[in-house]
């Protein structure tokens, strides 16, 4: 538990990003960056990871780039929220 507080796990960061994307349809990178509390470099890396896993999709409109959850991403986020609630019952965190 103490370690989880010191350093976010990759899974926790993925979850924070997916939550940020799910909050806002066509989420802008700045919104995700702010909500997930990440540096720009790390955000780009994690967004690429989530895109390659098919959990989010990128929409490019000229200069603007936005992100949305894919159906697989919606299911994954739902499962992770349930997992988060379950593990909190035993004093654990994702």
């Amino acid at each position, binding site marked *: 538990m103490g370690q989880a507080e010191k350093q976010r796990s990759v899974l926790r960061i993925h979850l924070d990003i997916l939550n940020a994307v799910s909050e806002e349809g066509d989420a802008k990178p700045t919104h995700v960056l702010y909500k997930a509390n990440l540096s720009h470099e790390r955000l780009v890396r994690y967004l690429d990871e989530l895109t390659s896993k098919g959990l989010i999709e990128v929409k490019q409109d000229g200069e603007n780039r936005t992100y949305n959850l894919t159906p697989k991403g919606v299911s994954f986020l739902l499962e992770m929220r349930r997992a988060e609630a379950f593990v*909190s*019952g*035993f004093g654990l965190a994702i």
Partner: protein
Amino acid sequence: MALAALLTFILNTLSGIVALLTSYYAFRFGRVAGNSLLKAISFGFMLLGLGLFLEAGTSAVLGHTLVGITKYRTLTGVESLSYLSIQMVAYLVFALGYGYMVFGRSDQDLAGSAVAAAAAAGGARALGLTGLYRYAVASYFVVLLLLAFVVFQGILIHSKSRSRFSLWVLAAFSLVLVAHVLLLAAVVALSGNLFLVGTSIQFLGFASLLVFLLRSGRIGAG
């Protein structure tokens, strides 16, 4: 089948189902979260579920509760011995897992959970008991010590997290602890009625766990 045995069969079967459900979800989410402690919790609940089914089966087949079997000194004590042993191992897993969660990885803090295990083993040795009746008393005593440790850790966890989910889990273990005080008293006094009351309170503990499963499962559904 005697009414007490029938009720024990029903309550233990239902409790066993909840224990196995908890084991399944702990395993499933342990895999998702890559958390080995959840796998330990899953193992503990699996043992507990199997133990409860074993006791339920014993009550159904013999038509007596564990107290009745002990009282009449039947030769079918093997089933009861298995149940009591499985239960002890299950709660030992919880005690060690909970100690690990609360205190983390340091050797000094891990000693806390080791002390609990040693105290439990010492308690059993101190009783110096043999035979089914004595083994039943000793095992309930050991489980009581382990559960007291688990509940204490649960209080620490809840006081830190203040989560309603940890409160449900704490309520579940607290009820199971109270149940085991009564079950120990029932075995000592060879009281079938007290044993049934203890089994009922234990079932309430598993009902609390079921509420936790249902509530945590709803999260994210909306």
